[in-house]
């Protein structure tokens, strides 16, 4: 009965094509900016835009990692907990090397990235080897590492970090370089590499991927490792920005991370999403944050608005899925 639909070539209407386009959200962001710029004082100033960019980069890094997991058909709720845990652990490592500025920075960053990769790998192993649902695995990882970060520091912030380290997150050129390098590499992996092609295949249909010789488990573990690395790098940037190891770093960020990916077109059904679209999603979310903040809205009002917008994006995703799916 649905055979006619299945054979008919896809004929998306103009609005539908726009809805599915990678540039849709970029267009919306631009319209939003242009519409509000005249009415919000200080919105369209160079300082504010610079500020907006600085705030967007850490989110971009962690959301890009999340996108990788979403493409594989999973979800990683543990990213903000990884950020908090790596923030305090990295700070503790660097605190012990007070007179070794550059070396301390390198060691600290390496430790943070290492922890991110290991936790991500652990998530991936639990999901593939023990066949546990990603939601449960990463939710429990989130609980554990959120608690761990506070426990380790007795809820204290850790100050006195090397200046080189603080510059990474605090000075925009450094932040920009580190973020773009990481995200660019990720984008290359997704678009050009064998891993990327396998990742999309696993997200589309893990059974077909397996029959076709794709090492499905390895690809999935790799996806969670990348997500953990993304979270760790975001932690490096934010820790440097705040110049403190913060046990509750990124506590409000999870919504933004998943929201940015989904607004950017990654699908909870797997197989969809890319770094550029996620960047557009990040921009959109940060624009809302920034504009509502300038208008003096409270954090909670902003949360309400963003909640509605992410729901709308998820709805669009689901609609799009239903429109294109033959049955």
């Amino acid at each position, binding site marked *: 009965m649905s055979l006619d639909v299945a054979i008919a070539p896809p004929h998306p209407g103009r609005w539908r094509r726009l809805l599915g386009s990678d540039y849709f959200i970029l267009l919306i962001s631009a319209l939003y900016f242009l519409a509000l710029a005249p009415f919000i004082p200080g919105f369209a100033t160079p300082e504010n835009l610079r500020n907006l960019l600085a705030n967007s980069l850490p989110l971009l890094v962690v959301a890009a990692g999340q996108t990788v997991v979403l493409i594989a058909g999973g979800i990683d709720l543990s990213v903000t907990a990884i950020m908090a845990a790596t923030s305090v652990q990295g700070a503790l490592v660097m605190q012990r090397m007070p007179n070794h500025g550059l070396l301390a920075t390198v060691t600290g960053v390496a430790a943070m990235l290492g922890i991110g990769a290991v936790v991500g790998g652990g998530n991936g192993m639990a999901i593939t080897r023990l066949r546990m649902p990603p939601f449960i695995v990463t939710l429990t990882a989130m609980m554990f590492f959120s608690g761990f970060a506070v426990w380790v520091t007795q809820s204290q912030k850790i100050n006195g970090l090397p200046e080189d380290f603080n510059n990474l997150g605090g000075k925009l050129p450094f932040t920009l370089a580190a973020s773009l390098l990481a995200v660019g590499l990720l984008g290359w992996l997704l678009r*050009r590499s064998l891993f990327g092609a396998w990742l999309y295949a696993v997200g589309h249909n893990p*059974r077909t991927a*397996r*029959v076709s010789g794709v090492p499905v488990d390895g690809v999935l573990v790799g996806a969670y490792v990348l997500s953990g690395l993304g979270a760790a790098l975001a932690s490096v940037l934010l820790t440097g920005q705040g110049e403190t190891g913060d046990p509750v770093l990124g506590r409000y960020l999870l919504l933004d991370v998943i929201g940015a990916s989904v607004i950017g077109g990654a699908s909870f059904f797997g197989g969809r999403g890319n770094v550029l679209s996620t960047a557009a999603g990040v921009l959109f979310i940060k624009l809302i944050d920034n504009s509502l903040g300038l208008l003096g809205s409270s954090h909670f009002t902003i949360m309400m608005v963003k909640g509605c917008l992410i729901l709308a994006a998820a709805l669009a995703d689901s609609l799009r899925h239903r429109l294109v799916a033959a049955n």
Partner: protein
Amino acid sequence: MIEFQGVAKSYDGIRALGPISFALRPGTILGLIGENGAGKSTLMNLLAATVQPDAGQMLLGGQRYAPREPGAALNQGVALIHQELNLFPNLSIAENLFLTRFPRHWCPPFIQRHALQAEARELLAEVGLDLDPGTLVEQLSPGESQLVEIARALGAAPRLILFDEATTSLGTREAERLFQLVEKLRQQGISMIYVSHTLADVRRLCDDLVVLRDGLVVGQGPVAEFSLPRMISLMVGRQLDQLYPTRTGEPQTDLVLEVRGISQPGVMRNISFQLRRGEILGLAGLLGAGRSELARVLFGLERPSSGEIRLDGIPLPPGQVRQRIQRGMAFLTEDRRTDGLCLNASLTDNLGLVVLPQYASGNTGRIDRTSLQGAITTVREAVRLSAKAADRQPARTLSGGNQQKVVLGKWLLARPRVLILDEPTRGIDVGAKFEIYRLIQAVADQGAGVLLISSEMEELLGLCDRILVLSRGEITDTLARDEFDQSRILRSALAHTLTA
């Protein structure tokens, strides 16, 4: 009891059944036999109202019978016992029995628990099951579940019960219990239609027989008039037409695949065979004979409990799909939608999936898209994929035939030495079938060994150099091309049931 008058049903313009006319006498059991695809299931689905006829009419007890939905069929006294068990394993027996008609108190949401238990007990007694109605169905054996399903049907006070391959999941003793129940129901005056591949059972249970072939009734009458050989010849009796391309090559002498003593408890026992280069080896058997399971073991998707598989004389370790692909094995699965294609991925991505590693740089993993695209374009032409299909088009939007060509194409790109095909022409039209046959022959002519699983006897006879027959997980016969004989194949496929 039930009468068919010129009933016909087509799916997408392809006739599945009819027009057929026959009648079932009240209080008797009618056996319905035929090959896979002969129209038995369609007939059952018409009676159970999961599909509607295109032409003709059915009479139930002299009244016009035209239910619009399964619930209506049940209300008019027609109950279908499915081939696969259709119970909710997570619910109790009683809940399964009364799912659609719980005895209720005056206020609707409350269920009369006591009445439920009592009525459930009564129904269970009727099918001879001495179990607590509160038992979860998942704790039951297949035979007990089957009886519960019959009890559920009896709860609707049926006049006609349809059994569709009711014994496939049952052991001998459980089947015996079922037969006794069927006998008892007949004495109560309930009419039944009994569909089965197990011809000995049909002879034993049924009063009358209807033989279907290609959707038409090719034989009917009292079961006493049908010997087993006559049943078989009626089921298969047709000539091969010119649907098959002429074979140019022939099998070579050197072996490419050797299978020695593969066993998997309850699924297959001591399977051994050899496949030559350039040979098309058919694997015949009924549904559930273990053919697809064998294919999955050969390809490393399942592990056998014992046995050895050699490719080019070198053993293949169990359960290593990637290694098998690297060494030249390819596997077109039975259901292209679940594990043959990425339906939402583009045609190009689907075609390239298997050979990606060959086009990736060893150091960076960078895929050489240009070369890959070139190879994909070549194979697109080789499998004669519809020119209308765009490279970026999702596989989902293609017709069944083109989808199958994509799956075949992705394996051809890997230049297989052994190609395993599981029902390669299922659900695709005649034109695409011919092209797939041509491709299969071409692969063999280029020196690969082909293992072809098919439920279409014609296809096996038309394409293969040799045919193995599988029955309940064992090879019961091997036929060389000059020995090909439909009756013999069917007899061997039924080997276990004929001797039972």
